[in-house]
């Protein structure tokens, strides 16, 4: 029970930082989402020790390990658009998949090749 309480406190803290990120985005009219700004803010706060790791650790670990859970409502939303991909629209899915494959393979291969070539590898 104590662990759950701790986790809730951690998540509330993460939520406050998220809202702070949103505020920065609105005030400065940035194109980067508030959540990503919040991520950078938390990184800076951790690096400068203004926030201790122990204040967010359990909550962050739990969320990060279960990140997929938070996407489910969004991905279920595809249900409203299935008719878009009937007929010629199906070709659009294929195009997105082929392009995604090339991005994934190309960027992954290139970074791995660079790392091994320059001897950056370490395990």
């Amino acid at each position, binding site marked *: 029970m104590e662990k759950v309480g701790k986790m809730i406190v951690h998540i509330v803290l993460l939520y406050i930082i998220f809202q702070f990120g949103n505020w920065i985005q609105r005030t400065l009219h940035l194109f980067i989402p508030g959540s990503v700004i919040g991520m950078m803010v938390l990184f800076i706060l951790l690096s400068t020790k203004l926030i201790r790791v122990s204040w967010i650790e359990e909550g962050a670990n739990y969320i990060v390990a279960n990140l997929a*859970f938070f996407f489910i*409502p969004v991905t279920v939303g595809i249900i409203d658009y299935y008719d878009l991909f009937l007929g010629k629209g199906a070709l659009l899915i294929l195009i997105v*998949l082929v392009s*995604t494959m090339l991005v994934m393979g190309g*960027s992954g291969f290139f970074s*791995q090749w660079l790392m091994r070539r320059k001897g950056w590898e370490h395990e």
Partner: protein
Amino acid sequence: MSEFVIAISAIIGTFFIYHLAIRIHRTWRYSLTAPVLVATILIISVLIIFRIPYETYMVGGKWINELLGPAVVALAYPLYKYKDTLKQVAAPILAGTLLGGVVGITTGLLLAQWAGFESAIVYSLTPKSVTTPVAMAVTDTIGGVMPLAAIFVMIAGIGGVLMHHYVFRLFQVNHYLGRGVGMGSASHAIGTATSMEVSQLEGAVSTISMVISAVVVSIITPSLVQLMM
């Protein structure tokens, strides 16, 4: 009152189905059984079978969605934890992600144009590799349709999760660095979620790639589009 009951059922139902999906993935470890895929398919099936509209599901779903923000903020923790390791591989991560950004925009544009789609659709498809809010903003700038852009982002995310085993085998990507860069560049946060299920280090690389990719794509897309259209 009934709204409250709907919300609670949707949240508990999603939670339950997600854990069921994790169990399924532990038993059969394939790309096809990635928890986000299985859970999405199961929930869509439930909605279809019981004729529940998506808006009704979202009465509860929006609360889970609300936590997506702090969930992304939480990604700073693995970044911080592995910051020394990540610093040493910053150059290959950056170079790989830059290449990924250019490949994503150009191949998306060329293929959709070649297939003969109207320009509004082509523009909506172009920024699909980056996280939804950024992709929608970019699409708006170059003259695409925002909701359509959000769907393509989702297909890039889910599709990447579905294909990553085969893609990495095909391109001989086997190191956490290459895998993380590939997942983050091609499939944004949905890819990062899957990387985090492998290891926090791969997930941290994926997080960095996702963020760099969002910045790069939003800056270079308008000029690349002008150059190619």
